[in-house]
């Protein structure tokens, strides 16, 4: 017989007992437990054990009476003094363990600073264009174009008659606002010339948007064809401090557009506006000079509609407008329209193939928000790890407190208070650091960031972050620390549960995995960017200067060209536009013999150029020839790129064949080899090249290798001598090209910073841990040394565990990073063939190397420590 059966112990059901012990009032506990036990034993004699158990439960439940339930809520009358004590202890601890506290606070501060900067950026992006008072009624009109394969493309350009029709024929639309593409130009007042940015607009621009008018009558923009409105900044630049009395009514000359009279002055556009203009001239003037804009088939501008009130459904308006639009079109593949809230265009500018919003800048906002969160988590993990590892040091304090009568709750609140205090200190330091780093951050992000101390949302955010961080970091350690049983503590028996140790190891692995992900990401992004910038584009953009073709330049071009070529530093001069590397202009008015109906809306990019364009840009001909020099402009011939020929599927030799371009027949005389005419996100598009140097828009100057400064000097002197009244403003073509990838470069830079920060924090954490482990093992090492262990084996002993953790992290990080990066690279039509092995090798190597460096100092120090000293500690 088993002992259990020989001496059966009659105990009531344990759960019931525990439950009773939990809710019963402290002073009643003993007698009630005793009474119930007596009753139970009594029942066990008389009835079956099951019945007795049931009866026990029955009795316990009936003790759930108001008088018997303990007071769960204990508002301590000494709350104030308790907290004073907590604070005192916290500071004392911080002081005692200076190194550890420093590591903690430093780690938290670094990541909080990064978080704050990121949030500032996110906030700025989010607030863009939201300041207009009419924002609920403003909608951008966009055009949808059906393309091959049942897809819909969305464009911002709309035909002018459509805007007019919207206002005149739809009662829901109050007015239309014309949006032009802002350009830089030379403005001249008497002898004063300066460069400014602007475009055309109608009066509604100022009536619907919240751009306050400081002086003058804005309605003149609609009434007078030569009216112009300028910003306060421009007024100051032109007229000095007394612009208020001088500016109105004066005439200024815009080099490419003519003379205008200043009818109104508006306040400088606020920072949070995606549109930036210093001058806005009458839309009527633009219309007069560009009659083709009146055509339903041309989309030369963008537009915004102001609806009558905010409750009107924009989709209904779009449907009605579409009916009107389609009634003015012919053929099958008709273009439609859609309305998007004006403020949404900034963040949600991308559409998918079904004309639904699919992203845009919002993706970067989400990316950065995610990154901020990640950093915060990494440093909270640090905090938790270090706190729990060092728990044994606080054990005695906990034991004593519990013996004197502290409840678990009060201990938990003590440790959470500590965590909060450290968090608050870190937040303050992070705020200071943020303030100091603001100028640098503004530079990198090309915004002017500032901390808005006066807004409620700022303080709420700070409070929220402090609370979340404090709780996240403090909760787990608080519970671990407060669960020490006084008996074990005072006996000196502090055994850590395996569960806690594995949890800590898991945290370290997570930290390093994240850091490795970031490192791999940073390396990969950098590869892709380098690839993009150095890839063979099929066009040579190096050593190339570009100057805007001002009207005066066109006038005297022959002389200018001659003088430039005289300069030995300048190898070539040509005219082309708009931007061969970006080709924004396009047309669909192209027709060829085998054109199919579903190809009706294919857009061909257009480049206006001079005859020596391919020579200066070093683009080889694939077939035929380019235009001969000397002709003013040619409307009978055309040159295409290879992609265009591919699409047209012409039979036989394309050279000599005739196609329709802009409604008139032209003969193909040559085919240019394909070059990238857009960013690497897109495939090479079909393009047509026309000879029209006067309307090309840009002068390109190629300098000899290494003689760029001489070329610039030469250019300046030519300008000074031939057209002294035109200020020289030049750009570098390869610099412009880099601008196409601004966001990628920003992402790349930020990933670099994140990777560095996260590795620093992880190493800080590791450093703290190794310090602690070394301390714990001092005696063990001392004994081992006495028994004859070599320094090497001791160092291995200490480091082995950590290296293993980092290796595991590495193995987890590899597949994860591969997945993420693959997806990111998909957005590029042309991807670099990432040398995965190299990247992983670098990442892994650097991780292990850093780990070793962090560990080495302490472990070597411990291993070489004299055993006499360490064993003497008894």
């Amino acid at each position: 017989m088993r002992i259990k059966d020989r001496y059966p112990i009659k105990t009531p059901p344990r759960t019931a007992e525990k439950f009773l012990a939990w809710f019963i009032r402290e002073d009643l506990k003993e007698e009630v437990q005793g009474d119930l036990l007596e009753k139970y034993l009594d029942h066990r004699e008389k009835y079956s054990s099951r019945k007795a158990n049931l009866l026990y439960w029955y009795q316990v439940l009936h003790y759930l009476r108001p008088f018997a339930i303990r007071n769960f809520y204990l508002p301590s009358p000494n709350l104030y003094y308790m907290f004073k004590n907590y604070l005192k202890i916290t500071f004392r601890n911080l002081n005692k363990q200076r190194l550890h506290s420093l590591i903690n606070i430093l780690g938290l501060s670094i990541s909080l600073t990064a978080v704050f900067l990121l949030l500032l950026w996110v906030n700025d992006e989010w607030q863009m264009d939201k300041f207009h008072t009419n924002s609920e009624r403003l909608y951008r009109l966009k055009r949808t174009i059906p393309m091959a394969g049942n897809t819909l493309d969305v464009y911002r350009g709309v035909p002018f008659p459509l805007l007019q029709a919207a206002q005149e024929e739809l009662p829901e639309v109050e007015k239309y606002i014309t949006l032009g593409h802002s350009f830089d130009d030379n403005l001249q007042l008497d002898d004063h010339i300066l460069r400014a940015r602007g475009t055309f607009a109608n009066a509604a621009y100022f009536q619907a948007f919240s751009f306050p008018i400081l002086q003058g009558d804005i309605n003149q923009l609609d009434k007078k064809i030569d009216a112009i409105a300028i910003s306060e900044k421009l007024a100051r630049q032109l007229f000095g401090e007394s612009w208020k009395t001088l500016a109105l009514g004066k005439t200024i000359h815009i080099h490419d557009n003519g003379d205008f009279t200043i009818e109104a002055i508006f306040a400088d556009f606020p920072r949070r506006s995606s549109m930036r203009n210093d001058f806005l001239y009458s839309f009527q003037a633009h219309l007069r000079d560009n009659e083709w804009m009146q055509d339903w088939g041309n989309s030369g501008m963008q537009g915004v509609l102001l609806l009558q009130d905010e409750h009107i459904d924009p989709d209904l308006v779009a449907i009605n407008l579409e009916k009107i639009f389609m009634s003015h079109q012919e053929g099958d593949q008709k273009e439609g329209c859609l309305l998007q809230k004006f403020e949404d265009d900034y963040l949600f500018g991308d559409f998918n193939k079904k004309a639904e919003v699919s992203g845009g800048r919002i993706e970067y906002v989400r990316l950065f928000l995610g990154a901020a969160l990640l950093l915060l988590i990494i440093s909270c993990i640090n905090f938790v790890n270090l706190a729990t590892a060092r728990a044994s040091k606080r054990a005695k304090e906990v034991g004593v407190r519990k013996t004197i009568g502290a409840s678990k709750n009060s201990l938990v609140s003590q440790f959470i208070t500590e965590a909060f205090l450290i968090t608050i200190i870190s937040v303050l330091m992070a705020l200071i650091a943020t303030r100091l780093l603001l100028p640098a951050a503004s530079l990198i992000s090309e915004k002017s960031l500032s901390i808005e101390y006066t807004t409620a949302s700022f303080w709420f955010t700070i409070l929220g972050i402090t609370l979340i961080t404090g709780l996240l970091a403090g909760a787990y350690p608080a519970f671990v620390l407060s669960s020490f049983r006084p008996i074990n503590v005072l006996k000196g028996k502090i055994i850590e549960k395996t569960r806690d140790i594995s949890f800590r190891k898991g945290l370290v692995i997570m930290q390093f995995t994240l850091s490795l992900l970031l490192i791999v990401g940073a390396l990969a992004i950098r590869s892709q960017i380098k690839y993009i910038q150095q890839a063979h584009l099929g066009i040579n953009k190096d050593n190339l200067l570009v100057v805007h073709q001002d009207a005066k330049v066109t006038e005297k071009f022959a002389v200018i060209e001659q003088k430039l070529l005289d300069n030995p530093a300048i190898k070539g001069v040509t005219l082309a536009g708009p931007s061969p590397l970006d080709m924004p202009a396009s047309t669909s008015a192209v027709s060829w013999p085998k054109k199919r109906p579903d190809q009706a809306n294919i857009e061909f990019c257009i480049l206006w150029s001079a005859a020596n364009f391919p020579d200066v840009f070093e683009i080889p001909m694939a077939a035929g020839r380019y235009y001969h020099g000397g002709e003013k402009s040619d409307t009978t011939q055309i040159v295409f790129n290879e992609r265009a020929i591919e699409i047209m599927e012409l039979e036989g030799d394309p050279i000599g064949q005739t196609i329709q371009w802009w409604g008139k027949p032209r003969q193909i005389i040559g085919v240019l080899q394909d070059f990238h005419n857009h960013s690497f996100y897109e495939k090479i598009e079909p393009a047509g090249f026309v000879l029209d140097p006067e309307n090309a828009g840009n002068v390109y100057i190629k300098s000899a290798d290494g003689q760029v400064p001489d070329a610039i000097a030469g250019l300046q002197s030519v300008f000074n001598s031939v057209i002294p009244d035109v200020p020289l403003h030049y750009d570098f073509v390869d610099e412009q090209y880099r601008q196409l990838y601004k966001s990628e470069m920003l992402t790349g830079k930020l990933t670099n910073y994140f990777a560095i920060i996260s590795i620093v924090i992880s190493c800080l954490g590791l450093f703290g841990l190794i310090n602690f482990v070394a301390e714990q093992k001092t005696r063990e090492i001392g004994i081992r040394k006495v028994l004859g262990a070599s320094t090497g084996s001791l160092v291995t002993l200490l480091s082995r565990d950590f290296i293993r953790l980092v290796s595991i992290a590495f193995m987890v990080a590899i597949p994860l990073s591969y997945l993420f990066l693959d997806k990111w690279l998909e957005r590029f039509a042309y991807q670099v063939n990432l040398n995965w092995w190299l990247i992983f090798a670098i990442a892994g190597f650097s991780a292990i190397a850093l780990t070793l460096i962090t560990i080495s100092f302490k472990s070597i120090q411990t291993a070489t420590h004299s055993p006499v000293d360490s064993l003497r500690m008894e």
Partner: protein
Amino acid sequence: MKGSNIGEFEELVLLCIASLGEEAYSVSICDELLRVTGRESKLGVVHSVLNRLNEKGMVKSHLGEPTQERGGRRKRFFEVTHAGKVALLKVKEQRERLWQSIPPLIFEGIKI
């Protein structure tokens, strides 16, 4: 006197305590109640009544010695205070007065 009114159950419990003398604690009170009234009351109920009586000042209690059957836990013994005895006598006297004023005829022939 404030709070000198006691309910029916309270009265019963007090009487039980008085009759049990030295051995009056919650379990024995329960058993006595069962024996006399046939009502099986739960310990929690009785305990609650005892608490109320304590607050009214009708009983007082003290803790006894720990015993093995109760897993080393002590018992709480109750005894009726002077105020409690007064209250009981009062009730008894009130009942008797009422009984005396009822003609015996009403209860003729009824057996319990």
